Structures are given as C-alpha cells and as structure tokens.
C-alpha cells in the first residue's frame, strides 16, 4: 500500500487522487486497532485485508445474532447495520 502510494506520487497528482479516494466506510478504520493491518504482527485476531467479502459479512452477522461466540466481537457487531457491514466487508476485500 505504502509502495503504491509512493508510486502514485511519482506518476502525478491524478493517480494520487485516485488512491486517496478509496476512503474507508464508516467504522472500517477502527477495526485495525485489533485486526492487524500488517503481516508483521502475530495475533490470534485475523487480518481482514483481502478476505472474502461474503465471509466477513457472514461472520459479523453471526456474531451479532449470537450464533457465533466471540469475546468482544459479539458486543461490537451489534453496533452495525447490514448495510454498514456490507460496506466494511467490501472495502476490506479490496485491501492488501
């Protein structure tokens, strides 16, 4: 990602503007407090970048309904609507 940004600067402001427009949807940026954005951290909490959108949506909905047991994710998932979950999942699916 960082390397891509640097490349964008080299190619000019239009490319940079395209990169900058990929703003995370509401709530998405907060996830990386626990879900590592980098592969350099070892954690039992899964990395979300590049995960399948449907898999993230399913996990969030199951945490929210209580069908799936979580330690904190059940409490957090209950704060998001289906639309918000879909948007967050779609964004993470495109992140590397």
């Amino acid at each position, binding site marked *: *990602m*960082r*390397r891509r*940004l*640097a*490349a*964008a*600067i*080299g190619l000019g*402001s239009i490319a*940079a503007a395209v*990169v*900058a427009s990929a*703003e*995370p949807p*509401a*709530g998405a*940026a*907060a*996830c*990386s*407090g*626990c*879900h*590592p*954005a*980098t592969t*350099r*951290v*070892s*954690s*039992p*909490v899964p990395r979300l970048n590049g995960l399948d959108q449907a898999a993230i949506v399913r996990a969030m909905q199951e945490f929210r309904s209580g069908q799936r047991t979580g*330690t*904190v994710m059940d*409490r*957090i*998932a*209950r*704060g*998001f609507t289906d639309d*918000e979950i879909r948007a967050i999942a779609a964004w993470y699916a495109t992140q590397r």
Partner: protein
Amino acid sequence: MRSSRRDFLKFGLAATTSAALVPVPSFGQTATPRVVVVGGGFAGASCARVLRQADPRIGVTLVEANATFTACPFSNMVIGGLRELGAQQFTYERVAADGVVLARMMATSVDATARSVTLGDGTRLPYDRLVLAPGIDIRWGALPGYDEAAAARMPHAWRAGEQTTLLRRQLEAMPDGGLVVISAPANPFRCPPGPYERASLIAHYLKTKKPHSKLIVLDAKDAFSKQRLFQAAWAELYPGLLEWVPLSKGGNVTSVDASTLTLVTDFARHKAAVANVIPPQKAGRIAEAAGVADRTGWCPIDPVTFESKLQAGIHVIGDAAIAGAMPKSAFAANSQAKTCAAAVAKLLTGAAPSAPKLINTCYSLVAPDYAISIAGVYAPTGGQLADVPGSGGVSPADAPRAVRTAEAVLAEAWFRTITAEVFG
C-alpha cells in the same frame, strides 16, 4: 520510486520552511495543504500517518518533544514486576518514513487567527488545519499537598516513564507487611479502569512476593468501570489483601502529606509504606494555550470532524477531547485519530466529511493470565458521540476461567497490533 518520494519530501520541507517566514496565507494560495499535529501518542502519531496515507499531497508536521514514546497501556504490568519498561517504548522512525516531518520540540503557543503554532525555540509553523493530541496534564494543586515535589515521593505513574519505574522500585523496596495505598480520582480521567487494573496487579505482586502486606484503594467515586468484574476477581484472587473504599465510605482523599506518606480523608488518615496518588487531570497544557479547553479543563469537539467547538481550524483528539460516551483510552484515541484524519483530508479539499462510526475496546488485566474487557461502538447523535443502542458492554460475569485467560492473550495481541499500527 524511492528517489521520487525523497524529492517530494524535500519539496514538502522546503515549502514549510520558507512559509514560516512570511505572513500565513490561507489554504488555496498554497500548493501543499499543511497540517500540524501536536503530540506523538496513540492519537497524534496515528493521525499524522493516516493523513499522509489518505492524501500524500498533504504536508504533515508532527510536533513532539520526546524522541521515545512510552505507552501507558500495559504499564501496570511493569509496576507489578511482570514486564520491563523497554517493552512500552517506541520511536518515530517509521512515522517519519511515511513522509511525516518531525519537529522535536514543545509547542508553546497557538495563534488561532493567524493559524500558526509557535515552538519552544520560537519557530512558527503555519497550518491550514491543526490537530492537538496533547494527552493529559496533572492538575497540580487540585489535591492539597500534591505538587511536583510530592510526586517524587508519592508517584502518580499516570504518564508512563520514570514515574512507572519509581512506583515499581518503591514496591520492591517495601518490606513484607507494608501498607500500599492507591488514591483514585473523580471522573473524568485517563483510562477509567486503569486504577483498578493497577490495584489488581499490585495485589498480584504482594500476594506472590510480600503476602503479609495490604493494599487499600481510596476512591473519590462510588462506582467505576468494569466494577462487578473487578470485584468478583478480587474476591476470588486477592481475598483479604485488597480493600476498596468508595466515596460513600470515606474514600475521598482531601489532602496528602508527602513527607510522611500520609493520605487524609474526611474520616481517617492513612500512613502508607508506598503511596500511589492518581491525581485530578486536565487536557495537556497546549490545549489551554490554544483556547480549546473549556472550564472543565477538557476540550469540547464536533463529533464528526473532532474540530474544536471553541476555535475554528483546530481539531482535538485523544484523552484531551470531550468525546461523549467514548472513554479516554488508547484504542479510542487511535479510532478518533483515523476519523479526524479522514475528515481533515476532506475539509482541505472543500469536501464534506462523512458521518463516522467509532469503536473502543479496552482490556484490563486482573492477573497475568486473567483479563476482562469493555467494548463500545459510537456514532454522532445530537452533537455528541453516543453509544450505538444495543452495542457494547463488558465481559460476561459468569464466563469460565478459560475466557479470562483467552482475554489476557487477546490483550497482549491488541497491544502488539495497535503499537505496530501507530509506531511500527
């Protein structure tokens, strides 16, 4: 690729330096929008990096006097002898590698009209948007007898570093059978569950190393964060060792005497062998100097942009902000920093910031292998950041011990993850 980034950086630096000498132009006249971030903790360092990642055309300067950041989360493990201070310390090399210009100085004043920050050496940094992330300052004098000299005898250890080590050394030097007293302040203050995690980990140290000792928590409140979970754990792990005295039972400390390590309440005088005074606090000093702190000592903000309600063009994030239902925690600071960075990036281009959603997750260790948590989801509602109805809450009261152990593992993973995101 590498050289192009260096050239860009050089250009950014040159623009900042020359602009400092001329009257401050408003954004639109400058080629590079300039953001100054004051304070290099979980809020400020995150915000500076995310701004650069959101839009590399933004010139970002991070003003921070210290070369090394010492993290407060997990510092109670250091006090309890379970971790070394070095594991809490981080530098800014990777922040700078993202193209953030570091100014290793104190910010001494802000001219909100001219839009510039003055540094300790007199340098003026002009900005289009200013982000203040100064954390907390101790409200010296608010507790009679507790001044900076007293803190050398009765450490607060509420800003991690030398104070953390001092409190640990005092506990290590204390003979078995000594009385340890913690004084906890009224709301609001940094890290609401912090005093009780600290009490737990000091109790763990006493139980394992000095079992004839006793710990008293004198509290200016009748209720505290994760209270039922803490009290259940104390009854299970530290019976007879840890006593919590609430406000209604005479817990409010009205003065201290550092020369005799005495804490005075309306009902009693407690002479301690080791005294940890967690004093009343306020937003870091620069907030007051910038005119963004209100009479409470904290900073009212807009819940969408984190822009000050008192001064246009200045945003306040982290512990210094009045963030509605969000607690003063490292996770909240990081979450706010990312929201604020996205809003600032949009405001600089004249776009409207979108309504955010924020999260907090806080773990507290009651023993090295026993943790409890609180989580929350927040959205702007009626001009405040409010809890999203139905979300959030604390760990279940009836969870088996395996869940507490799992949360202790998750707590450490959280620390590794968030510090890697902010400093790594």
